[in-house]
């Protein structure tokens, strides 16, 4: 898949996962991996970008004698997911245009 498209999709995938419930790095990777391949080194910049874009906030919780960093979606993050659905409608129109015009 085109790298730019994948990048944009992964942002929304991460937001969708933490929209369900607050989550941490490894769990996010596991959740997303069922649908699209993502490595740790891909996830880190996504989380950072989403945080600096105010789409998520972070907090740490003690877990087995260490700290685990959790990611929580913000209202702005939820808005991003919503925007994605809106954009997707446009993409579908383009898609059906390409299919139709391609046939003739």
């Amino acid at each position, binding site marked *: 898949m085109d790298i730019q498209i994948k990048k944009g999709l992964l942002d929304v995938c991460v937001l969708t996962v933490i929209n369900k419930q607050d989550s*941490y*790095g*490894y*769990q996010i*990777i596991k959740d997303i991996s069922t649908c699209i391949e993502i490595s*740790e*080194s891909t996830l*880190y*910049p996504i989380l950072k970008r989403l945080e*600096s*874009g*105010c789409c998520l*906030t972070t907090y740490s919780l003690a877990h*087995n004698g*260490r*700290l*685990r*960093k959790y990611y929580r979606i*913000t*209202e*702005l993050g939820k*808005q991003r997911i919503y925007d994605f659905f809106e954009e997707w409608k446009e993409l579908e129109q383009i898609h059906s245009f390409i299919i139709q015009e391609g046939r003739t």
Partner: protein
Amino acid sequence: MNMNKELYLKRLRSLIRALPDGERRTIIDFYREIIEDKMESGQTEAEAVAELGDVHVLAQKILAENPNRKPHDANRIAGIVLASFFGVMIVAAVVVNALSVVNFRTYATSTQQQSVEQEAETAEGRKVSAPVTKIKCIYVDAENKDVEVIRGTGNDITMAYETDADQSFTFTTTDGVMKLVNRQRFKNDLFHFLSSANHGHIEVGVPEGYAGEIYLNSSNGMILVSDALQVNKLTCDTSNGTVRLNNIHAETVIVDTSNAQLDLTQVTASKVNASSSNGRITVKDLASPDVNLNTSNGSIKGNVVGAEQDYNIHTSTSNGNCSPSDHSGGTKDLTCDTSNGDIDLTFSE
């Protein structure tokens, strides 16, 4: 090659040393947590580490993604200070200077890329603005400066600040996020305390009708917010500075400080969360159905709007007096926790 966790992380830390210390720590913590979580879910240490791949490849990838190399000017200024201290190190300063020019070029290109989508007109240094209709989130990371949010006029959100040779401000507006980040250029300065004594402030003007989010962040500065009336979410985070809110209507208010006091006057919100580690929390006419006040070594004092019986009250202090007492059966929640201070809250209609 089999490498254990600590060795892998140590190598990684050293390979990404061009990054600022804070960023480097966050990155190492992130990978450490991943490795530990993998081990906890049944992998061996060697497997968990091996899955991250060759440490040099990972380091290259991290560096390629990260435009925030250590500030170039710090090298140059450090060079000059050294030269004047030791006199004879001019040659070294020239070398450092030459390096910093190279650094500067790469840095400049990456900043330009970031600001491509910038919608607002940026005046030189002192005052930047963006139309209120385009912005969903205001974000200020002030480092050592005070931040003051006031009611602005007109249709633009404005940010005004004093420029200063040892501060570097980055302003961007991307995807509806208006963001101003300040970085102290000269972090390891011996005279840091002298220079930060006169630390100036950032003034943010928010016109009526702004209904987005506001995030304010400062390490050593105060955060003052007044007359923010329809904000969705207001978050204030500071390590050593006081947070003072006055006349705020927001959906959610979150304030957090480590070593300073929190003052909330006439704050109305669906949810209020205020926490301090070592400072006192004072509220005046706080109106919210969901209040959480939390400090370790300070007192919690003031008044809450409403009738006491409407609240589920949970208060706890280890070494202080406590009023009101716990109460349940209400429709609103009030939680106050402190370890070493008094809790003294009253209710007013």
